[in-house]
């Protein structure tokens, strides 16, 4: 058990970071802070992917340019896995796109309701329905 945990210590830390983001996402009623929670959760998932691709004793996945030209690359050189890096590069940019979209929605909600606390928003919706007599 102890050995299992010590070999996977970084994953334990990343799970805790993920849960921090999830808590911020659920607990707060403030929509901007909720987007912050989503960002933290997202960054923690990125960390999980990159730690999976790490190889001890490896170097960053960049080949030596001179050896590449001459065709004398060392076949025994260890590299970290480049595939998770590529996936996460795409995910970071898509994450900013969704963040921008979510924040634009929050700004519109603020214009329409005058608040970004979700309790106040549902209260406003409820009293509007009462007025209409739905």
């Amino acid at each position, binding site marked *: 058990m102890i050995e299992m945990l010590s070999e996977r210590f970084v994953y334990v830390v990343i799970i805790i970071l993920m849960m921090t983001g999830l808590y911020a996402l659920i607990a707060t009623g403030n929509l901007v802070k909720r987007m912050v*929670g989503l960002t933290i959760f997202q960054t923690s998932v990125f960390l999980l992917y990159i730690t999976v691709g790490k190889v001890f004793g490896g170097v960053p996945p960049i080949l030596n340019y001179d050896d590449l030209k001459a065709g004398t690359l060392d076949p025994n050189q260890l590299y970290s896995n480049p595939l998770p890096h590529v996936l996460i590069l795409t995910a970071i940019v898509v994450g900013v796109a969704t963040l921008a979209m979510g924040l634009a929605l929050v700004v519109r909600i603020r214009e329409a309701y005058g608040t970004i606390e979700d309790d106040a928003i549902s209260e406003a919706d409820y009293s509007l329905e009462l007025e209409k007599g739905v």
Partner: protein
Amino acid sequence: MDVTQYFDYALMAMLLAVGVAIIRLRNLFAVVMLTGVYSLLSAAWFTSLDALDVGFTEAAVGAGISTVLLLAAMLLTSRECDKVTASRHWAALAVCVAAGAALFYALPDMAPYGAADSPANTGPGMEYMTRTAEDMKNIPNVVTAVLGSYRGFDTMGEVFVVFAAGVGVALLLGLSGRRREEDQ
């Protein structure tokens, strides 16, 4: 074991401290700035994990553009957030404990950290290292080669997503100015 692992532990401790501070703070300006700090710390950790491209993208996009977007949204909306109610606190805690327990239960199935013979590190990912060396004599950075060539369609899809988000934001915020006239 080399000395850089102690930097990693320091970064992990700082990430945890910043995460807890973000949960507890109610001043949105502080929360947004700490989010930028969180991104920058994770960018430092990415660099230490050999993911140089991810590190500088996270520093530029995650710590830079995200922080600017969040600051702008905060200035347009509010500066303080309400206190977390007790019922919400316990509900969120229950969800986090349940999800965290499930992830911990799955933990033994993960390969040990840093193992070169784990399934993730023996599959097609590592094949790109040799393929790039054979196919492209001018591109030493394998991440660039995979991003631009082998997984080029993925990157094109990413461009579509960013374009769609840009159009969505422009429409939502009424940047054409038409909505303002209709309101009056």
